[in-house]
């Protein structure tokens, strides 16, 4: 977080003062959830980093011996997210549902130790299910623990911590493999321990989110048994959210923009093809995006609180559009891959936390997780469709025309989003634009 704060745009106070200020302004709940995400991401990325090596060198997998589980799982994960969000609102305990999600991902790690492809597939499926379950209640907890004018900052801090974990994971994995050559079982065991630690931190330090709380501590009480359930948390109410014009606008924009967001895998492949960088460096490309995301997540969140989420969200997509344009038309200079990765990281920093912050501002507290899940699921499914369509377009027309089509689509969708997300009436300041100060 200190790292992230260093690149905060302005302020006359000294760096340590600003850091202290930020820490005080961010609730303990957000810091605790950030820690849980950081630790859990270390665990997940450890496994992701060594899995190909383990499959090929450890299990002796032949070319393409393993099925194409992945596409289906992405779809399932999105639907599980909807379930997780709805459940969390229904039982009025976001922490419980998030905890089950984190717990599933921790519990499936020992399954990886079974040297069988079926067990491995089951472990990965459980991990995705856990991720799907926990995402919406976790984001709801973050939004419920921060005052409206600091939502962007809260999500920024969380996303920065989350990405830190993702960057640390592979390093831990290869430290273990360095200490024990071929010790994939040790990598999985350590990953399981790290994941369990994440669950422990969640259980001990994250309040249940039963009530809204600016601070955090007072929301920690256990819900009274048999407490009367408030009306309007059922499925109909959840989908009824879409009757709200402002949520519908956000949902529509998330889907539209998701449909034109080329998946990371394709983008890195395009970078590699267009810039002709060394094939050996290909696996390092996601690191570039993650590093920029980490550095800019908090500044982007704070900026969103100050100048409005709509502006930052649209600027993020403008960055992505610029990255597409560079890949399409810029000459292959040595700086090109760096520029594209910086823009790609900027896109994530300006949108990944800002979108749930915007959703939180237009959804009532009792349906907070459902609302976040609804938009998240719409976005995930749209991106999945984009992947399929982009793959087909690539096959039919080649990479350049496919990207040009995606860029044209993104430009149109971003323009439409700019109109749809306009503040409702000038007289009543829309929440989405943040509270002007």
């Amino acid at each position, binding site marked *: 977080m200190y790292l992230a704060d260093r690149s905060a745009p302005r302020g006359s106070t000294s760096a340590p003062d600003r850091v202290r200020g930020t820490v005080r302004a961010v609730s303990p709940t957000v810091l605790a959830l950030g820690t849980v995400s950081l630790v859990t991401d270390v665990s997940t990325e450890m496994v*992701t*980093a060594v899995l*190909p*090596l383990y499959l*090929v*060198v*450890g299990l*002796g*997998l*032949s*070319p*393409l*011996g*393993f099925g*194409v*589980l*992945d*596409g289906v*799982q*992405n779809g399932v994960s999105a639907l599980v997210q909807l379930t997780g969000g709805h459940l969390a609102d229904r039982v009025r305990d976001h922490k419980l549902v998030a905890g089950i999600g984190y717990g599933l991902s921790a519990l499936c790690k020992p399954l990886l130790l079974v040297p069988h*492809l079926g067990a491995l597939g089951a472990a*990965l499926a459980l991990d995705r299910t856990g991720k799907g379950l926990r995402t919406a209640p976790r984001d709801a907890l973050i939004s419920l623990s921060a005052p409206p004018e600091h939502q962007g900052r809260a999500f920024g801090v969380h996303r920065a911590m989350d990405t830190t974990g993702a960057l640390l994971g*592979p*390093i831990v994995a*290869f430290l273990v493999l360095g*200490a*024990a*050559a*071929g*010790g994939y*079982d*040790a990598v999985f*065991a*350590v990953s399981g*321990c*790290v994941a369990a*630690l994440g669950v*422990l*931190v969640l259980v*001990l*330090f994250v309040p249940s989110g039963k009530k809204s709380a600016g601070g955090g501590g007072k929301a920690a009480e256990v819900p009274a048994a048999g407490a009367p359930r408030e009306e309007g948390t059922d499925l109909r109410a959840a989908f009824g959210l879409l009757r709200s014009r402002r949520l519908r606008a956000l949902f529509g924009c998330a889907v539209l923009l998701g449909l034109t967001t080329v*998946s*990371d*895998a394709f983008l*890195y*492949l395009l970078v590699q093809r267009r810039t002709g960088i*060394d*094939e*050996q460096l*290909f*696996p*390092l490309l*996601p690191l570039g995006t993650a590093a920029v995301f980490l550095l800019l997540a908090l500044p982007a969140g704070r900026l969103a609180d100050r100048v409005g989420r709509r502006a930052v969200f649209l600027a993020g997509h403008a960055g992505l559009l610029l990255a597409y344009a560079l890949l399409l038309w810029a000459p292959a200079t040595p700086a090109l891959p760096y520029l594209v990765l910086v823009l790609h990281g900027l896109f994530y920093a300006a949108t990944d936390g800002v979108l749930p912050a915007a959703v939180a501002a237009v959804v009532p507290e009792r349906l907070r997780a459902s609302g976040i899940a609804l938009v998240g699921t719409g976005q995930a499914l749209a991106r999945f469709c984009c*992947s*399929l369509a982009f*793959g*087909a377009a*690539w*096959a*039919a027309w080649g990479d350049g025309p496919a990207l040009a089509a995606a860029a044209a689509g993104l430009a149109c969708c971003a323009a439409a989003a700019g109109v749809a997300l306009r503040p409702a009436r000038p007289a009543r300041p829309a929440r989405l634009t943040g509270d002007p100060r």
Partner: protein
Amino acid sequence: MTLTPLRRLLILAAGVLLLAGVGTWSVLSAAGRAAEDDRPRPGGPAFTSGRIALDEPGRLVFRNTAAGPHRDRLVSVPADAPAGATRTTSDVSCLRFHAAAGTGVCLQATTLLGRPSYRAVILDERLGTLRTYPLAGIPSRARVSPSGRLAAWTVFVKGESYGTAFFSTRTAILDTRGWRLSPNLEEFTVVLDGRPYRNRDVNFWGVTFAADDDTFYATLSTRDQTHLVRGSLRARTVTALTRNVECPSLSPDGTRVAYKKRVLGTAALWREHVLDLRTMKSTPLAERRSVDDQAVWLDDATLAYALPADTGARTDDVWTVPADGSGSPRLLLKSALAPPAPAAGHAG
């Protein structure tokens, strides 16, 4: 019970200690096993240091997988009595290796910024490095043409699929005369069912070369089907010949292709077959176990391939079987990957 901040911290500390203990124990025991792996085992092959030449007649050169300090090194044994022979060791380590006519291709693992990284090394007849090429992923198959002029390799590339967790293959062919590299067979024109074919899900692996230094055979996979393709390096085309063929290996006389055929749907079970290219008739071989290897022809009548050893993990044994479907499998080498055919001379 209410949890005071102090109690929470105490529980956290206890949890951290416990989990750190479990983690440390698992790393230490794995490190212990790795150290055990580096110690020579009783009953394993004997080693001597010496000179290995890829063009020395009558010797088999291969990757040794016996536990001990020479694991993964290239070693050589006499081709006529390989079983109990003392192995002459080199200091070259390879994950995959193939050689012909004094040219070797060795796919190696290194590290870059703390992450695994891979490269292909072209070796001369004394195992000296001629050229090095970075690889985009984990090595899978390697082949050299009978003349020693062309080399091919296949690697797994993560992050090329529509999703993110799984991976596709990439196959490259190198012409060592002029060092021209065709980095990706997927750029070649594909003819399938008599028509030009394009699809993003096209993958190639397992190249095997004919004697003319232009024709090659390989596996093409698309839409959950594998095909045997015949390609021309000069024309940059590949043409599909038949289905359900993986990891082809062309006989020295160029008339037959040994390959693994998937049985039982999508399960990882293969039977080794030989396809006669003139009649397109397939013959199953006497090996009944599942072979997951690109077999090599030791001569026009004998195939060699690796199978996982029952003695330990991460170790293969090399077996041979007659190429006409007769006879029965015989153990050729313990703790080894299948060797390329011995250099011409008095082949064993």
